[in-house]
């Protein structure tokens, strides 16, 4: 078991090392095969571990990393159903995306750098999944941050893309500060940084301390998962290659925040305030991002806001105290969102890097395969019954409704509204891209290689079916996921609400989703109804929704701008005029001093000999004087 | 009052030695001229006195009566006293040379030398090293290009050969175990050192030839290139002093060769003094013979001989002597 776990982690790392050391020497094909093989091997190991370690949980120590007094940081692996499931998902989705990348990056000369980062990213994500030590976890946490930065700015020669990478890096750093403080607090409180120990001893915490820790963890998760108020980096992160967007900003990295909260659920759950805050952040973000997605015109941006919105749902589920629901949502979201992103990638490449959905339309004719795949993803995203998305969302909504706290009723209504909006923007996207009359800008559609569409079919299948894992018993399901996760601390198999309410919720949910689809059909559909004019590619992109409610420009003008001004002041006034000039002034003392001393350095031997003589005489006279004074 | 007697004896000794040396020097001039004549199949001087025996007196008178010329721009003081140095050096060396075995007058034994220094050999070397001043200063003070070149040559030559001169005597000191010349002679009671130290003898002989500026090593004078070298500008009495110095030094060097290598005054049948005189005369005669036989060497050859042949040979000889002495003693 130890070997299998080690292999899961080491294979991607070795792949990254291979790419870094030999990737440029090897030609394209071996490099691609090596990259995919590393992830595939990791997936096989994860599958083996999943099966062998069914419903078990244990800790394995690989080696001690740092050991100072009682401050011990070990590279421990904590294996339980949650982490094994996470690892399985990560390796599976990553593996498919690797294969897809082979097609997508077929013309890029920098393939070895790309696959190196990608492999390294998978390794870091797996470290997050398995780490038992928060510091060890932090390594993975920073690792994904770095890889994300490197991949967003992959095409670094484009300054806009490079700065998008920097933006993502900086904003996620804000969250990392919270994590760092939390690590410190953990060590102070528990004298250990092992998650097992922390979770076991969480009960000893005072209420205030628990709240503080919960909020700190929320803060770090918010940064990673692009929740409000730190959402703004994720839409910009679309600057990277599309598979990267799929992998990082849909399936894996952004879920790290949620996953962190799941791992440390016993700590977070101690404080009702923290739980409420988690849920509040989730629902507000879900609403905000869904609204923003509605206004976007770039296909990837729509999906990016959608990701943010869906992550909000996960937070909401967590805040409501339902790990299984959150995890189920995470899994199905990973599948359908990566599916959607990869489809988007196909579309963009087919249309020669064209991302504006208003400039698309009628693509069904050109790429029927992608059409059906996208439809599967859209259906899952919109949570149309009876597909995966619907079942998961239903469980989340039920969990929120079932929370006794009255404020959760408000959250419930918000979540319903977000559901409606989700459906709306999902089908807006679908209709605009595939079914609307063909825009005149669409011509010369490039064929997409089979290696790019091939991996999407299993994803589509899983996206549609993943919800059945959470299939509630009321509907004849087995609630397999909650049962599987039963051993995980804080997980609940059943949500304690009456069956009638649950059915009611499902009905409302389905109705809302369907209504939204209809509305989308009316507004953006292939047929003109009620005199509604479809959107036009020529109309300028503006408006509150397009600008994501001006959050980014708000940050720009009220945080970044003052910061820049301050930095300028510090640079020009404090540094150049103060420090630099001070140093220069003080340095000028020495030439002046030296000019005084230089007088002695005549360069003439006679002067030096005279000085030597003078020194000798001074010694002699000094000796005489001290002798006579009896010193 | 014994020290007054001693002082008187000393004065007598000095007077005798000076007289003998001057006499010998004058005689040497005649001998050289006569010998050269014979070697060149001619008579040599034979007009003044019987067989030309009074020729030295005539030469001396001529030189004394000649005008004493001081060149323009010469450094007068140095110009005056430089020849004296050349003449003084061999005279000083003669002070430590033992001429004969101790003279017995009743019970008291009077050593037949002016001063038996315990560092006699070092004294000889020290004083010999001064002769370079006479050459160098004389040439420099003359304010003449020829003299200057001659004196530079002379200084370099003397410095070079002093080294092998001194080092060739080290084996002698090692064998005798003393710096005192009397002890060295006494150490040769059984056999003269020339038998055990032929290499030393050869080096000493060649070096002393160079030291006294004799042919084939007379480059500082080199009449044909330097018109007399360092003494070009000298005339009359001062020129005579240079000559006197050269001949006295020939005699003294002969005496030293006798002391160091030929067993000094020791010899069968004849009285010690006679043996000593005979041995002393060997070297000057040989010098004259060489002069008549060999051409002058080139300057670089001279320096190469000194530094590259004689000096290493000396060192090897010293090491060999030391090794053999160690072997014999143990």
């Amino acid at each position: 078991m130890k070997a299998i776990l080690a292999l899961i982690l080491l294979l991607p790392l070795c792949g990254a090392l291979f790419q870094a050391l030999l990737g440029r020497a090897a030609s394209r094909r071996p490099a691609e095969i090596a990259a995919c093989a590393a992830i595939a091997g990791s997936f096989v190991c994860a599958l083996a571990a999943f099966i062998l370690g069914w419903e078990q949980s244990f800790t394995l120590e690989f080696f001690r990393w740092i050991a100072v007094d009682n401050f011990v940081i070990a590279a421990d692996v904590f294996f339980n159903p949650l982490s094994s499931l996470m690892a399985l998902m990560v390796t599976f989705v990553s593996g498919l995306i690797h294969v897809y990348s082979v097609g997508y990056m077929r013309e890029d000369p920098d393939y070895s750098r790309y696959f190196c980062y990608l492999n390294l990213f998978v390794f870091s994500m797996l470290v997050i999944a398995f780490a038992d030590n928060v510091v060890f976890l932090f390594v993975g946490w920073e690792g994904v941050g770095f890889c994300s930065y490197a991949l967003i700015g992959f095409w670094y020669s484009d300054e806009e893309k490079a700065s998008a990478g920097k933006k993502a890096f900086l904003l996620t750093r804000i969250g990392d500060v919270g994590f760092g403080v939390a690590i410190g607090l953990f060590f102070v409180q528990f004298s250990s940084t092992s998650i097992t120990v922390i979770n076991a001893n969480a009960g000893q915490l005072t209420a205030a301390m628990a709240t503080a820790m919960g909020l700190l963890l929320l803060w770090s998760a918010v940064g990673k998962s692009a929740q409000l108020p730190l959402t703004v980096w994720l839409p910009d992160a679309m600057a990277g290659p599309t598979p990267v967007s799929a992998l990082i900003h849909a399936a894996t990295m952004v879920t790290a925040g949620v996953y962190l909260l799941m791992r440390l659920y016993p700590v977070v759950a101690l404080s009702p305030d923290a739980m409420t805050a988690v849920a509040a952040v989730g629902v507000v973000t879900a609403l905000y991002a869904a609204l923003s997605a509605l206004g976007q015109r770039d296909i990837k941006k729509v999906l990016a806001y959608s990701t943010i919105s869906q992550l909000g749902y996960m937070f909401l589920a967590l805040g409501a105290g339902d790990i299984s629901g959150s995890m189920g949502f995470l899994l199905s979201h990973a599948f359908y969102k990566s599916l959607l992103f990869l489809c988007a990638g196909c579309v963009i490449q087919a249309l020669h890097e064209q991302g504006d959905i208003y400039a698309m339309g009628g693509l069904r004719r050109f790429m029927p395969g992608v059409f059906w795949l996208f439809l599967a993803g859209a259906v899952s995203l919109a949570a149309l019954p009876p597909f995966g998305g619907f079942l998961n969302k239903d469980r989340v909504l039920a969990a929120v409704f079932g929370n006794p706290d009255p404020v959760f009723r408000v959250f419930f209504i918000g979540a319903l509204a977000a559901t409606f909006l989700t459906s709306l923007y999902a089908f807006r996207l679908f209709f605009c891209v595939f079914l609307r009359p063909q825009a005149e800008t669409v011509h010369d559609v490039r064929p997409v290689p089979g290696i790019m569409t091939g991996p999407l079919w299993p994803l589509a299948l899983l996206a549609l079916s993943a919800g059945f894992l959470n299939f509630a018993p009321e509907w004849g399901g087995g609630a397999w996921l909650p049962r599987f996760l039963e051993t995980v601390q804080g997980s609940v198999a059943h949500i304690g609400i009456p069956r009638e309410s649950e059915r009611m919720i499902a009905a409302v949910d389905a109705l809302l989703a369907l209504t939204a689809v209809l509305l989308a059909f009316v507004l953006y559909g292939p047929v003109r109804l009620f005199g509604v004019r479809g959107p036009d590619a020529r109309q300028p992109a503006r408006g509150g929704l397009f600008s994501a409610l001006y959050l980014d420009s708000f940050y720009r003008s009220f945080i970044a701008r003052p910061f820049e001004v301050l930095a300028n002041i510090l640079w020009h006034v404090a540094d150049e005029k103060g420090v630099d000039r001070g140093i220069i002034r003080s340095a000028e003392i020495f030439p002046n001093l030296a000019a005084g001393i230089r007088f002695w350095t005549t360069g003439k031997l006679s002067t030096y000999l005279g000085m030597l003589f003078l020194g000798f005489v001074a010694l002699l006279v000094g000796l005489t004087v001290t002798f006579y004074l009896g010193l | 009052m014994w020290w007054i007697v001693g002082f008187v004896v000393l004065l007598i000794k000095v007077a005798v030695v000076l007289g003998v040396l001057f006499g010998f020097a004058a005689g040497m001039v005649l001998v050289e001229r006569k010998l050269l004549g014979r070697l060149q199949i001619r008579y040599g001087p034979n007009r003044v006195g019987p067989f030309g025996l009074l020729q030295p007196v005539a030469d001396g008178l001529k030189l004394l009566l000649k005008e004493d010329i001081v060149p323009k721009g010469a450094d007068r003081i140095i110009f005056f006293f430089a020849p004296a140095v050349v003449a003084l050096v061999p005279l000083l060396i003669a002070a430590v040379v033992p001429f004969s075995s101790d003279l017995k007058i009743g019970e008291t034994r009077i050593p037949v030398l002016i001063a038996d220094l315990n560092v006699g050999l070092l004294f000889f070397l020290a004083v010999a090293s001064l002769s370079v001043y006479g050459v160098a200063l004389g040439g420099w003070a003359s304010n003449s290009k020829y003299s200057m070149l001659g004196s530079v040559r002379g200084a370099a030559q003397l410095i070079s050969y002093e080294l092998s001169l001194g080092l060739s005597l080290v084996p002698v000191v090692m064998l005798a175990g003393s710096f005192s010349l009397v002890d060295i002679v006494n150490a040769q009671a059984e056999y003269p050192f020339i038998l055990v130290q032929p290499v030393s003898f050869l080096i000493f002989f060649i070096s002393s030839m160079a030291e006294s500026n004799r042919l084939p090593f007379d480059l500082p004078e080199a009449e044909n290139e330097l018109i007399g070298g360092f003494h070009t500008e000298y005339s009359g009495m001062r020129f005579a002093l240079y000559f006197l110095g050269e001949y006295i030094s020939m005699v003294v060097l002969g005496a030293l060769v006798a002391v160091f290598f030929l067993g000094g005054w020791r010899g069968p049948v004849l009285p010690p003094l006679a043996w000593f005189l005979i041995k002393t005369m060997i070297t000057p005669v040989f010098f004259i013979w060489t002069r008549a036989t060999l051409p002058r060497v080139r300057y670089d050859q001279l320096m190469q001989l000194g530094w590259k042949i004689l000096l290493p040979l000396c060192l090897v000889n010293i090491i060999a002597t030391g090794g053999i002495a160690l072997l014999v003693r143990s």
Partner: protein
Amino acid sequence: MIATMNEVLILSGLVFILGAVCAAARRNLIMILVGVEIMLNAAGIALVGASLRWAVLDGQVFVIFIMAFAAAEVSVGLALIVFSQRRTKSVNADSFSLLRG
């Protein structure tokens, strides 16, 4: 009695100071070297006197060393003077002032 130790030391000190003054006052490289020689010689006088004063030979031995040092110093020093004379056509110590401040 030949002299007191004091007198030997005074003699030695006087000669030493004369040498030091010579080295410091003269501008000619050769005279500076001469001054150094005088100082070394003065040290020799003091050492020989001390050797006699305490009736041990170490003082005399040191004079041997001083002589060796002097010989080495003069050979290199004069070679340097010749060398620098070739370069600057001067033996004036003050004309070697390229390193002045």
